[in-house]
């Protein structure tokens, strides 16, 4: 698959996926390509993959995750201070998740536990306290809100359709605990409020997700078998999930409700 991705607003193919928007576009393009490939299979060829029985032992799953991130900070304040300070531009989170698939439930799928990590940052200039001066100077000193969400979840992946009937979709669900580090830099050092409290802390909450994975093995079944035999990677997927994290109580709510996409490998 030699696919060149064009980023919006540019006339050149993107050689690096540095811009988050471009990364999103690339992943979407990959998903669309996979969809098109399924649709363009020759007539008479079953779009379902032939069920395999030659899998190598499967114990884990690795996900590379990417998606927009907008924390629910304003749910923990009296006014929408987050929106007023950072605006409503989209910011993105990059993350990883590693699952240990402990048990294969017959005719259902795998049940396991997983741990995830991600990172995102929000930046905006510090603000002149009211009343504003007549000629407001340009402020360059920025506050950076850094969020490092982590979670531990139970994961159920229902892969019996793909394994037993060749339907290349694997729905899944996750439920567990979330834990996040967050810290604010005021442009010089860690921010400190008027009470002398440092602007860094942890938040504890809940994590849940529902999603579906597209089994990429159906595009090149022989290559998938070879990869399994050579590297132990049983399956590779593109996935799309709706993820909900919440950090209520007397703490900064750095959770979010968002779509996440990415690539998953089962090993």
């Amino acid at each position, binding site marked *: 698959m030699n696919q060149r991705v064009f980023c919006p607003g540019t006339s050149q193919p993107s050689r690096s996926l540095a811009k988050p928007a471009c990364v999103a576009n690339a992943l979407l393009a990959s998903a669309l390509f996979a969809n098109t490939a399924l649709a363009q299979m020759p007539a008479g060829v079953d779009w379902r993959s032939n069920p395999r029985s030659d899998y190598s032992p499967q114990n884990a799953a690795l996900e590379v995750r990417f998606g927009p991130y907008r924390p629910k900070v304003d749910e923990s304040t009296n006014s929408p*201070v987050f929106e007023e300070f950072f605006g409503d531009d989209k910011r993105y989170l990059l993350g990883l998740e590693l699952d240990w698939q402990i048990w294969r439930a017959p005719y259902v799928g795998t049940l396991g536990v997983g741990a995830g990590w991600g990172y995102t940052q929000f930046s905006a200039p510090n*603000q002149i306290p009211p009343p504003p001066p007549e000629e407001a100077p340009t402020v360059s000193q920025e506050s950076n809100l850094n969020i490092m969400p982590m979670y531990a979840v139970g994961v159920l992946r229902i892969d019996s359709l793909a394994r037993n009937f060749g339907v290349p979709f694997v729905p899944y669900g996750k439920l567990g605990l979330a834990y996040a580090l967050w810290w604010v830099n005021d442009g010089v050092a860690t921010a400190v409020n008027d009470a002398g*409290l440092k602007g*860094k802390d942890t938040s504890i909450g809940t994590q849940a997700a529902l999603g579906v994975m597209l089994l990429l093995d159906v595009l090149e079944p022989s290559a998938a078998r070879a990869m399994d035999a050579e590297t132990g990677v049983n399956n590779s997927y593109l996935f799309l999930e709706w993820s909900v994290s919440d950090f209520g*109580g007397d703490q900064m709510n750095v959770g979010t409700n968002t779509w996440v996409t990415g690539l998953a490998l089962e090993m």
Partner: protein
Amino acid sequence: MANTIGKGVKRGALSRVRSVAAGLAAACAVLLCAPATWAQSSTITLTESRVSRNQYRQDASRRWWISYEDCVRGDAFTFPLGVSSNSNLIEVWAGNDDCAERRGQQDRGQCWIVAAAPPDTPQTTVIVPVRNVVAQSTASSLVPMEYDASVCEGSIDPDGQSVTFYFFFQDGGKALTGGITWDAKAAGGTGFDLVGPAPPGSVDVTVGESQLSISIGDVDEEGDRERFEAFCVQGGTAVDPPVAPALDAGGAAVIDAGSSEGAAPPECSTPLLRAGQRAPLGYSCGLASETSGTLQTSELVNGTTYAVGVAGQDILGNAGALSDIQCGTPLVLDDFYEMYTESGGRGGGGFCNLSFTRQSSEQGRLMALGLFFAALLWRRTRSRE
């Protein structure tokens, strides 16, 4: 015992000292009081590891080079010499030619005398003020008079000049055998470079809390430049006498109060900073690497208007001419965390500030559910085994 030389000692006076010393040596020899090893031959030795300067440079590759600040502050080399003759005057020359050979031809401009001392003990310490090196005086064969800091303004070669020091006995205007040289080649050599690199073509000052942010633009390639240095002076500041060493040359000498060319804008007017001229020492307020597009100043006073200029700085720390002078006023600002807590937001205090009481009851129930789920999986795995 140390002899401090190079402070206006004239050759005539030294000759008299030499005569007296020779006379005393002869008298001692008669009285059999002279150390035998000292009077037998004429050699000078120098233990390189014992050479010192008042101010050591951080950059070890140019430790012995002389910068503008070294010159203004009146630094000096200290050379501890081992001397095996007490009958001849020791002269120290600097230059980039064979100065021992060419002694007496200093009018060529390649060698010049920087100090002289009578070798009155086997261990003689010779002090060479760096201004004597920088002055490069070839006007006479006299040991240089004590130069003031204005001599530092006379060195305008942007590439500087490497030098070698020559130590030799002289007798009647001739250099005797037994002299030595010192060029510190293993430590990057020695010499003087008092001129800093060119400033950025444009600067733009924006506001922060207790600091200013300076955008640096239109930067020309210049191999000599290592970093940029910002200078901040409170608006309305005239000449500041307490920083006397800086103002001897770096301040008062460069200020032309009668002209407005390159002057600071009226709202932060000061005669101390002027575009195209060297800033006075003592007003540095920040450094940034040569490749950085932004320079953050060190801590400034909120609500005070500053005149701000940026200069290039070379490896020796020489700041060059200033960029255009801009005004900036640091202000009290609200960062996100201040606004968050002012809006009733909770949390903060550090990563180790764990408080389980802040979790909601739902989270507690979910945590219990998670533990139950994990226990179930564990039990299932055990039973399968």
